[in-house]
């Protein structure tokens, strides 16, 4: 498989997953605010700012906006043109990557992704948004899940799919750590909080819902929402498909499929780092994590995931495929129409 193609498939999947996770996180926060009373501007900011921080685009946000109000944050995260990781920009990027490898993906996958792209860029998207954010996010999540289903049901099991899945699981693991980190300011720096208020319980259940984990969590812990259990579930659960451990485990499998190297060995840094992180997740307890401090632990986890992504790139893509001068290149590609004469 061409390195450039592998790269595009990987980023296509990451951006789809990213868009879906933004929909999840903003949607849940909006709903959460409906349940909380006595909100003034300052308290509102305390709910919205962490969301911006969770996506890692805080600096970018304050370039364009002064205050973290609900309207500013949602606009920035959903439609923001100035934010390369906004929901709409992510879908555009996913679609652009898919377009570059149009011949490597199935018609069904392309059609659905293209439909989603046409939708978010249409005036209709704004109309749906203004009628009710929830409907809008539902549309995005449904489409993303549809795409994941199509990937599973139509893509041939070869290298291309492994790169798609590598992108999917890496992004999902990363986003789960970020969603889990949203409420870190209500936690002590280290150790497990003893008691939590009813409002805090609501907040932690919102974290679970952001990861579609509410139902799964309830079957294990009934309605007993406590940060220790939530963190344990989202980080260390073996069977929940959005937990970090699950995602890293899948990533580990996928990387071994790409290289054909058996478990317990490695041939490149991506395999080494993934295996190491997986072992750590497998042989840790949640209390040890709270001993380090949840926020600090999550920060390190994100760094590890970033390093895996970079190592994957070095192992298979060889060199950054960025044009030395994008504008110039676009001009030349267009210039080629002289000979196409349609």
């Amino acid at each position, binding site marked *: *498989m*061409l*390195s*450039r*193609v*592998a790269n595009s498939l990987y980023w296509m999947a990451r951006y789809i997953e990213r868009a879906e996770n933004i929909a999840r996180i903003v949607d849940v926060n909006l709903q959460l605010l409906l349940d909380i009373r006595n909100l003034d501007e300052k308290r509102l900011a305390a709910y919205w700012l962490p969301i911006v921080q969770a996506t890692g685009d805080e600096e970018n946000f304050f370039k364009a906006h002064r205050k973290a109000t609900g309207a500013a944050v949602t606009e920035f995260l959903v439609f923001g043109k100035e934010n390369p990781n906004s929901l709409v920009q992510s879908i555009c990027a996913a679609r*652009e990557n898919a*377009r*570059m490898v*149009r*011949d490597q993906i199935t*018609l069904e996958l*392309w*059609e659905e992704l*293209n*439909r989603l792209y*046409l939708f978010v860029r249409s005036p209709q998207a704004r109309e749906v948004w203004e009628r009710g954010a929830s409907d809008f996010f539902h549309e995005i999540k449904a489409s993303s899940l549809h795409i994941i289903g199509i990937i599973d049901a139509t893509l041939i099991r070869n*290298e291309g799919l492994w*790169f798609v899945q590598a992108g999917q699981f890496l992004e999902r693991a990363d986003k789960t750590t970020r969603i889990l980190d949203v409420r870190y300011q209500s936690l002590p720096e280290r150790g497990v909080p003893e008691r939590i208020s009813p409002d805090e319980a609501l907040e932690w259940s919102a974290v679970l819902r952001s990861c579609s984990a509410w139902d799964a969590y309830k079957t294990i812990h009934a309605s007993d929402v406590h940060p220790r259990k939530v963190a344990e579930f989202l980080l260390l659960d073996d069977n929940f498909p959005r937990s970090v451990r699950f995602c890293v485990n899948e990533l580990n499998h996928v990387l071994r499929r*790409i290289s054909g190297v058996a478990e317990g060995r490695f041939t490149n840094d991506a395999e080494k780092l993934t295996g190491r992180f997986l072992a750590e997740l497998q042989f840790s307890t949640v209390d040890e994590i709270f001993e380090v401090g949840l926020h600090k632990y999550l920060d390190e986890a994100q760094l590890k995931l970033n390093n895996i992504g970079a190592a994957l790139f070095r192992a*298979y*893509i*060889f060199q950054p*495929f960025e*044009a*030395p*001068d994008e504008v*110039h*290149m*676009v001009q*030349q*590609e*267009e*210039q*080629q*129409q*002289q*000979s*196409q*004469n*349609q």
Partner: protein
Amino acid sequence: MLHKYKVNGGFDEMLCPKTGVRGHYKKFHKLFESLKPKEFQAKREAIDTAFLRQGVTFNVYGDAEGAEKIFPFDLVPRIIPASEWEYLERGLAQRITALNLFLHDIYHEQKILKDGVIPEFYVLSARHFRREFVNFEVPKGIYIHICGTDLIRDKDGNYLVLEDNGRCPSGVSYVLENRRAMKRAFPGMFESIGVRPVENYAQELLKSLKYIAPAGVADPTVVVLTPGVYNSAYFEHTYLARQMGIEIVEGRDLLVRDSRVFMRTTKGLQPVHVIYRRIDDDFIDPTVFRRDSMLGVPGLINAYRAGNVSLANSIGTGIADDKVMYYFVPRMIKYYLDQEPILPNVPTYLASEEKDMKYILEHLPELVVKAANESGGYGMLMGPKASKAEIEKFRELIIAEPRNYIAQPMIHLSQHPTYCDDNFDGRHIDLRPFVLSGERVSIIPGGLTRVALRKGSLVVNSSQGGGSKDTWVLYGDK
């Protein structure tokens, strides 16, 4: 639905002013008549949505939002009876054979120049003549592997060749997609009318490409080389690659080591043997042609010269697109094949011939003037429709650079019933058949019928308000 349709001047493909619906349109006409306007509307909308969703689009240049447009598609097919197609096929095969012989000749002995059949000056001054490739042996002696020859019909229905596209002709993906859409919309019609299929184009193309693989390579790796996603025909490039089941690569995916071409893959470097390139000569190798090209592959031409990789089309075929060379094609046919041209040219005047120049300058308001090396409807003057100022501008251009201009009388293209503004009306059309030359010449039945959707317009280019139609070649004449 077609009963209100009338001939409105010129040659009409479907209706004969005396006898009504022409024989080869009768079956279609009858089936189409039974369609209710509502059903027709529904089919139209379904096809448009499908094209947009599947991304069967071309890019609009200079649009910051990166908008893509669908190439407007008209549901009334253009129909060609078997005997007429057989005639066209013979004419096209003759023409491509002569063009390939011509290219081989001018890049070798240049007999046609020495014998004075074509004045030397025209060939040696041609912008796309690559003197670096004189005496270079192209694989199997074939220069143009894929040719798009544009045909039109005059007011009496005679077919004429308008131009040859021997570099990177595009549009074949629309032929294939249009057919798919029509089959979905009118599944019943194809069998009862008897339409020849077009589906095997990709296999034929791949066969032609494998045919030119370097000697000694048993199972050649063939790739499509595209300028990239921003190119207007990018959809077509991926489409063809997919249909052939081969990789589509950009210049940056390839590299040359020891005069061999490799592609960068996740498993390391893999050799490439044949490149179907959709990049012009100028951009293909920055070490040989344009130095600022970022689309090409440094060293590719060296590998090509060493015979380790084959290119389709070959380097230097652009000269066959030169509109001055077009003028000489009938002479080439006579010279190399000793035959009369089966398909005639449009009468053409060369500005660099003294007598023709005089005629051109005196008759500018009646003539169509074309720059020798432009295409896509650019660099053109439509005398009868131009303003005084435009005519004067071209007069100066022609006088300043006669070698670069030709003129032709205005040909009233044939008309075809086309759905416009809730009605069926006559619109001008042309035809671009796609001619493959490999072990033998093979031509996809029909080709791309382009239609000028603006009333009275003679410009069919998609960049200027053109659309397309499915082209049906029948098994029989009725």
